[in-house]
Each structure stands twice: as structure tokens, then as C-alpha cells.
């Protein structure tokens, strides 16, 4: 598997504060990678170094075979960036903004295709200032992909979305991933990472704490499951390494073989994540910036 992004011993310091402190990470071509971490963990600093917006103090970084620090402008033909902040362009229409952005790329996507891919066909000729938060964010993604990037950076793309808008947005990201675009996603939403990412990296205090698939992160698969049911009007639960046997036992003794209100759960990604970062939170709340 070829790597889209290689990070070795990345370091960045602001005064005495080590924002990124010896980070090693490989992101493969064609994968969706979610970078998780509390505020001040070094996510934004790391991503902005990869995007070529920030310089680093130490380590080696390669993005699509090029060092982003001092990369030539033509390198930007191959990457797309959806910034955390959204704004500007108020007086233009989505079609105008996309068309003018498309022109600066070597091999852009068709503007109409992008308009419909991001679900803005109805709003293509309306002023951007009148778009809803979700529509505006989808336009940001449209602007990020109109240059047909091999690698797309998505920085907290669904903050402030309603549930339906988030589902629609996820479908859009999945379709990009299906087309082979490598995606580096930073997010605060664990369900978003779980839905979209092939792999998840958790960073805190500028270091990588865990790296795995969302289902296996932090040994989730090996954890004991919780079997819960209702009996004599009371909620009962038991933690077990053999939930199937437990369910069979319960079924055998329940009238009609049906266990009332039965659930079998394992620790959620969120539980695992919070356990992982807990030791680092005290440090991070005093850290400046992110």
C-alpha cells in the first residue's frame, strides 16, 4: 500500500509549549483517516503543517511525495482543503464561486457535477449569504474537491449540523472515498469517525496515543460486553466475556424464550476515547491555542 502522508518525529513548539511532540504517522492512499483529540491536543497544528500553512520545528513530513513546507504552488493541484472556518464569498453564488475556483486548477471537475454532488443544484444561482449552515459547509467541500484532489483535508466539517444534514454530509464524504480520494478528517464527533473512517488516530499533548480501526480502537473488541435485560420490573445487567452464552442462558429461563428489553453492548468509541485521553486532559486545558 502506498502512503499519501508520512510523518516522522514531527515537532512544533510555541514558546515553552510543545504543541506537537514527536508524532509518527502514516496515512495510506485511498483511506479515510480520522484524527481525534481534545482541544489543544495538536490536531490543528499537525493538519496545518501537512497543509503547508505552518512551519515545523523538527521531524520529516511528506504529503503526496512532497515536503509541504515550501512546496511549489503546483503541489496544491493535488490536494483539497476544507478549512475549519467558513465564511466570505457572501455576494457570489455557489456556481460563480466554484467556477472561479475551478479555473485555478490544472484538471478541475465539471462545475455542474460538483454542484449536484454537494446537493446544491437548487441553490446554485442563489447568493451564498442566504445558504443554511449545512449548505454553506457543503459548498466548502465543493470548493475543496472542484480541483479533483487526490488528498482532501476536512477540518471539523459538520460542527453545528442538524442530524439529517450530517447524514447527507457523510454520504457525500463516502462517495468521495469510494472514488479513491484519500481523506484526512479531524472531528470532535466520535460517531462521525466511526461512520466514516477506515482508521482512527487519537492524539493528546502532541503525541499519538492510539491508532486502529474504529471498531478495534483501544482494544474495544476484546473488552467484556454488558448484557442487560428487565426482570421483575427491574433493570438487571451483567458484564461477561461470553455474551452469547449469557443470552442463551437468559432465553432458556424466560417464559416463551423471549428476554424482555434485552441489550448487548460493548464500550462505545466515545467511552474508549474518553478513557484514552483522560490522563492528558489536565495538561491540555492549560495549553494555549490548538
Amino acid at each position, binding site marked *: 500500500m502506498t502512503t499519501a502522508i508520512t510523518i516522522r518525529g514531527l515537532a512544533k513548539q510555541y514558546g515553552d509549549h510543545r504543541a506537537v511532540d514527536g508524532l509518527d504517522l502514516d496515512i495510506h492512499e485511498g483511506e479515510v483517516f480520522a484524527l481525534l483529540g481534545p482541544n489543544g491536543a495538536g490536531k490543528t497544528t499537525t493538519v496545518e503543517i501537512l497543509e503547508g500553512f505552518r512551519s515545523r520545528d523538527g521531524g520529516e513530513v511528506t504529503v503526496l511525495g512532497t515536503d509541504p513546507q515550501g512546496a511549489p*504552488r503546483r*503541489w496544491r493541484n493535488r490536494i483539497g*482543503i476544507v478549512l475549519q472556518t467558513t*465564511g*466570505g464569498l457572501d*455576494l457570489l453564488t455557489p456556481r460563480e464561486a466554484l467556477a*472561479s475556483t475551478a479555473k485555478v*486548477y490544472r484538471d478541475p471537475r465539471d462545475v455542474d457535477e460538483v454542484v449536484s454532488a454537494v446537493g446544491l443544484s437548487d441553490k446554485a444561482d442563489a447568493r451564498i449569504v442566504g445558504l443554511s449552515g449545512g449548505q454553506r459547509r457543503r459548498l466548502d467541500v465543493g470548493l475543496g474537491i472542484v*480541483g479533483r484532489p487526490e488528498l482532501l483535508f476536512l477540518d471539523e466539517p459538520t460542527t453545528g449540523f442538524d442530524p439529517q444534514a450530517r447524514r447527507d454530509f457523510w454520504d457525500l464524504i463516502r462517495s468521495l472515498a469510494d472514488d479513491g480520494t484519500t481523506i484526512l478528517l479531524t472531528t470532535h464527533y466520535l460517531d462521525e469517525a466511526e461512520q466514516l473512517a477506515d482508521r482512527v488516530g487519537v492524539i493528546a499533548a502532541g503525541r499519538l496515543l492510539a491508532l486502529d480501526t474504529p471498531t478495534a480502537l483501544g482494544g474495544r473488541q476484546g473488552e467484556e460486553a454488558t448484557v442487560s435485560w428487565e426482570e421483575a420490573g427491574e433493570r438487571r445487567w451483567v458484564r461477561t466475556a461470553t455474551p452469547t452464552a449469557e443470552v442463551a442462558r437468559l432465553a432458556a429461563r424466560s417464559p416463551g424464550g423471549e428476554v424482555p428489553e434485552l441489550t448487548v453492548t460493548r464500550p462505545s468509541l466515545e467511552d474508549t476515547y474518553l478513557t484514552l485521553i483522560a490522563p492528558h486532559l489536565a495538561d491540555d486545558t492549560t495549553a494555549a491555542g490548538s
Partner: protein
Amino acid sequence: MTTAALGWDRTVLELKMYSREKESVVFSFLFPIMLLTLFSVIFAAQFEESVSEGGMSAGQFFLPGMLSAGVLLTSFQTMALSVATERDDGSLKRLRATPMPSTAYFLGKVGLVGITSLVQAALLLLVAELVFGVDMPTEADAWAFFVVVFVLGVFSGTVLGIACSSLSTSRSIGAVVIGPMIVLQFISGVYIAFDNVPTWLQYVASLFPLKWIAQGMRSVFFPPEMAAAEMSGAWERGLVVLVLVAWGIVGLLLCVTTFKWYKRGTT
């Protein structure tokens, strides 16, 4: 696309945004034309005696000042406000994330300012001649000098405006730029005759480009005998050019050394 083609594309986009912003159209593009009309009507009576003796009408008197104010508004004010806003709302960072050469962005700004100020000046001249019967210069060298002052004024206004956009955030850049600009217009002989300005204030005004733009414009549209009312008693066309070139160079250097694509604190 070539950088020049992208620059033209940016120009068209900038013109679209500019023309859709009613505030900028009214308060920078139409403002000098409205003021010329207003002043020519209000002060018509006071200029009656002058006109009857073959002297200047109110329209002729205010035309150079309004041309100068127009240059300042469409170049300096438009640039300072729009670049500060674009930096704050992330538009500049977004552009920086694309392969667009930075030259294309600046060409777009130059195109916007060039076209709006040119159309504005043309409208001012038309209104002055057709509505208020101002006699236009007939000598080619007067018009040649007009073009020189206009181009140098617009250029220095543009680069100084871009440089000043870094002075503040979009929230307060309006106050930071517009307040001093109004003061400058009063002491530079735009709204009131420059020889009515106290000498020490004339010296203060001489430090800034607007006084020299206005003086250059007066040298084109005023009768020759009015040169006596200038600080040195002459039009000093050579000095006008020299000062505006110097400000253009200073502004360009400030632009190049201070321009930031991201607002402070976000890299």
C-alpha cells in the same frame, strides 16, 4: 490558465462582488459624484460674482477635489476594507489553499480599482461638463498630466490601502480607515479651498499623498492664475509626481513586507 488570464477572471469576480455591495457602490463609487452635484448646487450663489467676472463656477472649483476624493475612496478605502474583511473571514486563506498564484489575486484587485476609479472619474467629468458647464482643458499636456496624477494616485492608494488592511480586524477597520480619511480630506483641500487651511495644517497635509493628488488635479482644471493660492505659489507638477511615486514605492514595500494571508492567531 495563465496568471494574466486568472487575474482577469479575478477582476470580473471582484467587480461582481463590488457592484453587489450597495454600501460600497453608494459610499465609495457614487459618493464623490453626489457631493459634486450637491456642492455645485449649494454654493452656486456664492460663486455668482466669480462667474460674472469670468472666474470659476462652483462646479469647476469642486471638480479637482471630488476627483481626488474619488481616487482615495475607490483605491485606498476599497482596498483597506475589502482586504481586511477577506483576511478575517478566511477568504484569503482559502485562496492560499489553492494553486492560484498570489499575483492573480493582486491583479484582480488592481483590475477592480482601475476599472471602478476610471469609470468614476469619467462620470465626474461628464457630470461636471454636461450638468454644470465646467470648461474642460483643451491642451494635450494638461490631459497627459491628469492621467499621470490619476494613475499614480490610484496606484499609491491601492498599495497603501492593502498595507493598511493589516492595521485592524474587519470589525473596526472601517473606523480606523474612514475617520482619518475624512480629516485628511478636509485638510488636503478636497472640500474646502486649500489656502483656507491654516499653514501648519497645510504642512501636516503635505506629508500625505492626498494633498498632492488634489494639487495635481487643480493644476489641470483651475485657471493658471490660481497657482498663486498654492503653498509655494506654483503648481509644482514635478514635485507632485515625485511625492506620489515615493508614496507608491513606500506602499508597495509595505505591502510586500507586511501582507498576511491569515489573520493573527490562526497562523
